């Protein structure tokens, strides 16, 4: 696992090309929205980062379930713990980008950096729940206990993901719903033109590739960290 696969190198190149294409589309192809101006273009990567943030937490939840189902019978169940940590870490980074870019967009549109709207509140809870996952894990020394705890935690914490996703559809909110109908009190909604739709789709595809690539790299690092931990344990015994 430590030697870099040639498929990972290919994936690196494909991801870079897709990301550059999406960036060029956002900057030069997508039209400027006629009310909000250029800041509306933050939307393309804002939604894409939210998507892979939630995808990371979903991967962690699935890996947690598989770990719990297999850790008594299979010696290699530890790999699912490595996958879960990778998913959470990537999810945290991209959810952070999503929150900060949302706040930057909100300043000129809502005339406020932040408001305790249902979407903003639930996404903050989600981010903090997963930040706690990493902090609490760091406090457990026994690798097996740590993995078991992590698996249970990642399943429970996942409740915050659908809660965040559906918050703008369940509660009255000022956060716009771009795909589907917005609450009448939402502020900053707009209709997508075909060019905007293409740029949005390309952003989602490129960030999905970024997710897969980063996940693969982070899993490789997880295997290496596990090997180093085993070596340390052997030397101290």
């Amino acid at each position, binding site marked *: 696992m430590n030697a870099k696969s040639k498929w990972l190198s290919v994936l690196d190149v494909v991801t870079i090309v897709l990301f550059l294409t999406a960036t060029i589309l956002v900057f030069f192809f997508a039209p400027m929205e006629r009310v909000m101006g*250029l*800041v509306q273009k933050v939307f393309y990567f804002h939604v894409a980062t939210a998507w892979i943030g939630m995808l990371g937490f979903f991967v962690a939840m699935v890996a947690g379930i598989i770990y719990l189902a297999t850790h008594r019978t299979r010696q290699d169940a530890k790999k699912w713990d490595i996958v879960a940590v990778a998913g959470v870490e990537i999810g945290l980074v991209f959810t952070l*980008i999503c929150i900060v870019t949302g706040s930057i*967009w909100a300043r000129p549109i809502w005339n406020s950096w932040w408001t305790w709207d249902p979407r903003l509140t639930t996404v903050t809870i989600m981010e903090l729940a997963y930040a706690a996952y990493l902090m609490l894990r760091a406090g457990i020394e026994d690798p097996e206990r740590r993995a078991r705890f992590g698996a249970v935690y990642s399943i429970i914490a996942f409740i915050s993901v659908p809660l965040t996703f559906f918050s703008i559809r369940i509660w009255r909110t000022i956060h716009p719903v771009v795909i589907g109908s917005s609450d009448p009190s939402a502020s900053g909604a707009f209709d997508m033109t075909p060019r905007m739709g293409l740029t949005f789709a390309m952003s989602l595809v490129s960030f999905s590739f970024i997710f897969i690539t980063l996940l693969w790299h*982070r899993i490789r690092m997880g295997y290496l960290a596990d*090997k180093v931990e085993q070596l340390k344990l052997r030397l101290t015994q």
Partner: protein
Amino acid sequence: MDAPADTLNYFIAGYSVIFGVMLVYLISLFVRFRNLRQDEKTLEEMEDE
């Protein structure tokens, strides 16, 4: 018809955050991976002795 709002500064700030945080994360992955490789090498040498 009114002209679009002048939100260029917010657009620049938004994309600076996106590219900046992604770059910092990539560097962090690279540095951690390199440090782990060094640890692995050192520990394997210690184990061989």
